[in-house]
């Protein structure tokens, strides 16, 4: 069908990673298709976050391959993966809590001249222009995430839902095509959820591809275009959310009944 | 009222105890000494000697009626500390003269002395590089004299013609080692190997083991201070049985008391442990006097004489240049260890004794008379 014809933007093949004697990820393969939201689900300890860590270069793999638009990214370091267009959030947010909201987002914006020591001193004009552009971009992003009123507050002073938004804002600013969201909805109450869900949708409208880990099945059904079900480091099933959530065998594994 | 009276009373007493100082401010001089660190034993002697001299000078009416005041600074064997101390002495205290010690610190402050016309008198450092420096006088012979004597004595009279050398890793140690190698070679000896050690080190076994493996009939120690005691002890412990030798530098209490240093062959510069000076020193500081106590006593006395001479010439004013000219013109000074004549190279010559360290004392075998 049309789904098969669409070539994946990222494809994970035969990925394996163990810690000590525990096989956290084992022969894991799935595809992420462009312009869609893929939900990575599974019970606790299924290896979801490990997959994220391997994709983003924070962990090595024992075997396997990760192709980003056909290019192998396994073995690259985290910043190289980011520069190739894969950004991520963390379960524990990892905001720069003693920096302001604006600075957190500015760190997501590309400022190659300002980060280069030589141009910093030798091309002050270019640096100034770049910084101004970055600020403009950061303000737009903050606007997009509804944080423009919080620009100069310290990240640690924000309420938790806003911190969550900020963690997404900062990677959105990076302008990378693939966004990995680690439990974007966890710890949020109903109202905040209503704020986040449309935002994630809007990311796709802005041309992003989203891979997200989520526990909230309702949310997964509502958000995802595709779902990958992970169990004990393997992909048990992949498909449309409706198919997965309706499968009683999977539900049993998921809820550990 | 009573306090005022008692203050008055004590000041009268004090004035009575000290001879009245006729005119003006005290004369301040500096003394840059190893008061801390591995050479602190030398510092005790040097400071004590200078202190005793100053007290005697003041008890005798000071220098041309002015009181002498010595300002002590610590260099802890560190030349840059010496430089800082020297700057303070020159810029704040405005001294015309300073005692210095050790080779590296003295060399480091000498350019400042020249720039500010301050006379330096070094009674301790012995590097050959200290000779022929403007504004710097050494009332001690440079080490090559002593090393020459012992090298010749060891090679020709003791028939110890192959040596291994352990060398302190500093100006004095290296300079002496270089000179030893030359003079020993000239006397028919041969240095087979040398190893350097840190002056403030405490474990030299690896180096000594290496030297032991090279054989030789003599272990020459080109080091000083407590370092030597440790080297000697550890050499014996490693089964090094060949004779050991050094120069007068090694004669500090730590070495003389050490088991391993017994029988060490050494030079000695004239020092009488039973002299009146030595007794007085012991009474005052509760520790035995050593050669360097006399050296700094003498250096201070030499300054007093030169300063008196300079002030006589200038009609009362005292400057470093005046002191320098006075030293150059007087040249020969009477000291408690005999006549001292400053040579053309700004150094002194002394009788050099050679002998063996036995039971904490040097048994002198031979005295080589000073020759200019």
């Amino acid at each position, binding site marked *: 069908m049309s789904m098969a014809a669409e070539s994946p933007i990222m494809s994970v093949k035969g990925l394996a990673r163990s810690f000590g004697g525990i096989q956290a990820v084992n022969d894991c393969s799935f595809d992420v298709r462009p312009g869609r939201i893929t939900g990575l689900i599974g019970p606790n300890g299924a290896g979801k976050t490990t997959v994220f860590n391997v994709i*983003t*270069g*924070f962990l090595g793999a024992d075997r396997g391959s990760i192709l980003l638009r056909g290019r192998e990214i396994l073995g690259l*370091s*985290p*910043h190289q993966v*980011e*520069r190739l267009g894969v*950004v*991520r959030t*963390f379960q524990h947010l*990892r905001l*720069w809590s*003693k*920096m302001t909201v604006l*600075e957190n987002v*500015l*760190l*997501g914006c590309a400022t190659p*001249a*300002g*980060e280069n*020591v030589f141009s*910093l001193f030798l091309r002050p004009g270019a*640096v*100034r222009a*770049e*910084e101004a552009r970055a600020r403009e971009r950061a303000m737009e992003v903050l606007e997009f995430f509804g944080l423009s009123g919080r620009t*100069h507050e*310290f990240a640690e002073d924000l309420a938790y839902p806003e911190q969550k938004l900020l963690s997404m804002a900062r*990677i959105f600013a*990076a302008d990378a095509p693939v966004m990995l969201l680690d439990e974007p909805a966890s710890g949020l109450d109903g109202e905040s959820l209503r704020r986040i869900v449309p935002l994630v949708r809007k990311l796709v409208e802005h041309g992003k591809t989203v891979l997200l880990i989520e526990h909230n099945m309702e949310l997964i059904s509502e958000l995802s275009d595709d779902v990958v079900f992970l169990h004990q480091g393997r992909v048990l099933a992949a498909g449309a959310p409706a198919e997965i959530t309706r499968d009683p065998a999977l539900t049993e594994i998921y809820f550990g009944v | 009222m009573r306090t005022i009276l008692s203050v008055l009373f004590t000041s009268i007493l004090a004035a009575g105890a000290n001879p009245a100082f006729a005119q003006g401010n005290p004369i301040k001089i500096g003394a840059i000494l190893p*008061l*801390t660190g591995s050479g*602190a034993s030398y510092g005790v002697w040097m400071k004590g000697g200078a202190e005793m001299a100053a007290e005697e000078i003041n008890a005798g009416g000071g220098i041309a009626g002015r009181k002498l005041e010595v300002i*002590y*600074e*610590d260099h802890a*064997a*560190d*030349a*840059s*500390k010496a*430089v800082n101390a020297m*700057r*303070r002495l020159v*810029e*704040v205290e405005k001294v015309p003269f300073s005692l210095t010690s050790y080779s*590296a610190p003295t*060399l*480091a402050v000498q*350019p400042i002395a020249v720039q500010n016309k301050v006379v330096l008198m070094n009674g301790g450092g012995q*590097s050959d*590089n200290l000779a022929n420096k403007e504004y710097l006088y050494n009332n001690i012979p440079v080490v090559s004299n002593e090393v020459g004597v012992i090298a010749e004595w060891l090679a020709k009279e003791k028939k110890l013609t192959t040596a291994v050398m352990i060398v302190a*890793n*500093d*100006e004095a140690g*290296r*300079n002496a080692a270089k000179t030893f190698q030359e003079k020993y070679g000239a006397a028919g000896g041969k240095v087979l190997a040398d190893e*350097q050690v840190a002056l403030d080190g405490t474990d030299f076994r690896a180096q000594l083991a290496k030297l032991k493996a090279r054989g030789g009939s003599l272990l020459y120690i080109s080091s000083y201070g407590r370092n030597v005691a440790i080297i000697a002890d550890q050499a014996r412990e490693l089964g090094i049985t060949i004779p050991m030798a050094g120069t007068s530098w090694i004669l500090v209490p730590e070495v003389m008391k050490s088991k391993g240093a017994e029988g060490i062959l050494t030079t000695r510069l004239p020092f009488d442990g039973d002299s009146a000076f030595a007794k007085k020193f012991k009474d005052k500081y509760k520790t035995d006097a050593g050669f360097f106590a006399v050296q700094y006593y003498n250096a201070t006395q030499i300054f007093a004489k030169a300063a008196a001479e300079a002030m006589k010439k200038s009609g009362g004013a005292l400057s470093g240049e005046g002191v320098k000219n006075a030293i150059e013109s007087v040249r020969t000074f009477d000291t408690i260890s005999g006549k001292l004549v400053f040579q053309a190279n700004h150094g002194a010559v002394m009788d050099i004794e050679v002998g063996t360290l036995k039971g904490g004392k040097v048994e002198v075998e031979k005295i080589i008379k000073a020759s200019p």
Partner: protein
Amino acid sequence: MTAYIAHYLVMVGIYAILALSLNLLIGYSGIFSLAHAAIYGIGAYASALVALKLGLGFWGGMVIAAGVGALASALVAIPSLRVSGDYYVVASFGLQVVVLAVFMNWTDLTNGHAGLPGIPRPNVLGWVIDQPFEYVFLAAAFAVLTYAVCWRLTNSAFGRVLQAIRDDEIAAQAMGKDVVRVKIVIACISSALGAMAGSLYAHYITYINPSSFALHESIFIASLVILGGSERLAGPIVGTFLLLAIPEVLKFLAIPDTVAAPVRQIIYGALLIIFMLVRPEGILGRVRSETEHAK
């Protein structure tokens, strides 16, 4: 007396450069180095040797000093900063030990413990700076230059990245920052500036030997940074003014010479403990963020 105050100010200038440059590591990058005295020494020796053996004078010496300082630092930073900060503490200690061994033992080059005398005074456009009060201006000019460089580095996108790395390295990596490269770059810049201070020192004192660049000097420079406040650019300068005054103050108290040096060290050490317990942000305190105000 004025000459004496001038001397104090020159030393404040030199140590301010050392403290500012070390603070790029300690304060802005969260990397603790025990080798800053070695870097300072490398600068002093490189500059002195260039002046004495090649006759390139003060300016040539300073440029080469900065280069050699950065290079030495890179040699250690490249292996150790790839792993973790604790490795760098030990590796920098190693650099300190090795550099000092080179100063002491490569006698053909460094003249060993005897040191290098007769280093020429700087010549600025034909004007030889040989009075302490003249040197105050030179030292101050370089301190201001260092301050400007540090300001530019920390109040920029680069400074933002530094701070991000210090606060959360993982997050910085995830945002595409090449953490290792940035750390190595800042280590090299810090060292180049520190070496420059060494050059100033050598041409001021006109004599150098290894003992001025030993481990305790590294710890002393770190104290200047920490007590003044490592989170502000001006912190190290305040620390320098105060801590350099302590030995002078002690001279006015009647403390015997043999005790004065350890007493000084005890004061430095006690200040470090007290500040860590009571006011870890140092005298000047904390600004939680600075780069915000960059334009």
